[in-house]
């Protein structure tokens, strides 16, 4: 038995020797660019991947897409970045799983002289400045403006009087915080629009259900929900249905994913703020390629946002 194993190992090593020479030479001459996403089990990032892939095909670059299993697993994302650096990618487009936590990974890319383009979630400015990291470009939605857009919709629809519940994203995440800040600033001028409850449901649908169910118990006066993403909004809609209040509570989400658009058509959801992740992916790859060619890129690209409600789409 032991001898068999040793024999197999020797054989494999022998094969390795044969391949050794050709393996290094087999690398293609097309530039290799990596896109590291937060996760791949979210339609938002699937769209981003599609946009990036189309841009890569058009520009003749090889695109490697990797993601951690869980959206919040920053340690795993850091490992992926380290491994991609080892695999000799020439540029890196990254959607940070954590605004602060990912900074050491960007430091490593900088040290390896690999240009980095940040997509979707901004690096924490303080942490980035302290570590002295350099990024070529940031591409993302204006989440703050999206929050204001949602607020404007709520103010208009409610004619200035509403009891609002907010479903927050994971605390400390720049994306959710900006949306919420935008929303709060947006309603500030309308004293009749009050926030009666605000809690996190960690971006998730099932938690959106539970958290909103509890909110409704404590505050039966709630007539409007602003959820910082559609998953939580869809969870809240189920809770509303379970409470027999379908159609009586105005639900506003964020991202305009397919399920949310369907809910808007059916009338269970009032509106959602659409982002354009495919455009983000496209611009990310374009900017990465430009950086590689030594061309100047816009350091801060704001991708358009759009309110989707029943009348419009």
């Amino acid at each position: 038995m032991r001898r068999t194993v040793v024999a197999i190992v020797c054989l494999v090593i022998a094969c390795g020797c044969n391949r050794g020479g050709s393996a290094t030479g087999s690398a293609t001459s097309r530039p290799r660019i990596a896109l590291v996403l937060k996760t791949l089990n979210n339609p938002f990032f699937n769209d981003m991947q599609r946009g990036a892939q189309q841009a890569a095909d058009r520009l003749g670059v090889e695109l490697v897409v990797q993601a951690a299993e869980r959206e919040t697993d920053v340690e795993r994302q850091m490992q992926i970045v380290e491994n991609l650096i080892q695999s000799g990618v020439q540029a890196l487009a990254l959607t940070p799983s954590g605004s602060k936590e990912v900074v050491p990974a960007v430091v490593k890319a900088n040290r390896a002289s690999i240009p980095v383009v940040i997509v979707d979630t901004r690096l924490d400015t303080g942490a980035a400045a302290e570590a002295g990291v350099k990024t070529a470009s940031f591409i993302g939605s204006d989440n703050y403006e999206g929050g204001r857009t949602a607020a404007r919709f709520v103010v208009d629809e409610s004619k200035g009087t509403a009891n609002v519940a907010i479903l927050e994203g994971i605390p400390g995440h720049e994306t959710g915080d900006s949306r919420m800040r935008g929303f709060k600033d947006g309603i500030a001028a309308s004293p009749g629009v009050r926030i009666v409850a605000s809690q996190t449901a960690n971006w998730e649908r099932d938690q959106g259900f539970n958290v909103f169910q509890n909110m409704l118990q404590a505050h039966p006066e709630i007539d409007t929900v602003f959820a910082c993403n559609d998953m939580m909004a869809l969870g809240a809609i189920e809770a509303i249905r379970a409470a027999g209040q379908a159609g009586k509570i105005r639900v506003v989400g964020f991202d305009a994913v397919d399920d949310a658009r369907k809910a808007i058509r059916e009338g269970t959801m009032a509106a959602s703020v659409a982002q354009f992740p495919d455009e983000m992916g496209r611009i990310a790859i374009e900017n990465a390629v430009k950086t590689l060619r030594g061309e100047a890129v816009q350091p801060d690209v704001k991708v358009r946002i759009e309110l989707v409600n029943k009348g419009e789409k």
Partner: protein
Amino acid sequence: MSRALGTRVFARRFGATAGLLLLCALLWILTPYFLTVANLLNVMEQTAINAVVAVGMTYVIISGGIDLSVGSLLAISGVVLARALKAEWPVPIAAVGAIGVGWLLGLANGVGIALGRLPPFIMTLGMMSVARGAALLATDGRPISGFDAAFRALATGHVAGVPAPIVLTLLIYLLSYLVLSGTRFGRYVYGIGGNEEATRLSGVPVRFHKTMVYGVSGAAAAVASILLTARLNTAQPIAGTNYELDAIAATVIGGTSLSGGEGSLAGTLIGALTMGVLRNGLNLLGVSSFLQQLVIGVVIIMAVLVDRLLKEKRA
């Protein structure tokens, strides 16, 4: 009898090592980026955290138990560490404080199991939620970040050209190995896992030692939290989610038996490296993230299956 046991243990450890070597050889053929000094150091650095958590898990599993709370204990210890560092405590004192918290919570697990006679699965499942909740409460769910270079050196520094986390991990393994194989406590851990009743009848204070085993596990998780916090320059209350599963996987790939009484730290280190190499290799090859999960699962099952076959053949 002892000879048979000897060969069995040998077969287990040998199986895991052969598997790791085979994997490395395969990756060497498939990608030119794998077998470079920089990449191998990279893999070992990435493996360090799981490897350290798995030290405690190995003690627990050898004693016939399981510890599902290690990920959460890692998070709460990290939060304590971060708070202490932010309060400008010297690094060694903050580190000892964090390890102390991990150790105490681990002991609490042990007390529930040894004195309260709760099944380890239930007690540590409860603690998993308690410690996670405490970490979230203490931080309001927000990460704590930005530490001095002196602390970050634990992740970014080098000792004679070798990254500090690797050196620390090896030291921890050496120390834990000496305790497990060279002390009375170590022998009792095997004894309790092999036959608790017989161990108790031979006059060993089983409940005390069982409690200490979970203390070791909590302390190991806390040491891992120090490495993780330095690495990310951040302590997160949601850090370490699912780390218990990685640690259990590393332990069983390394040939430690889930039924207790048998296993080794050397095997666990090989097991942790196997998982690290696998993840690294799949990244280097640009394999789809979904396929990666599938492959890792298959490897865990295959490793334990081959191990079992080898063992049965020898026995």
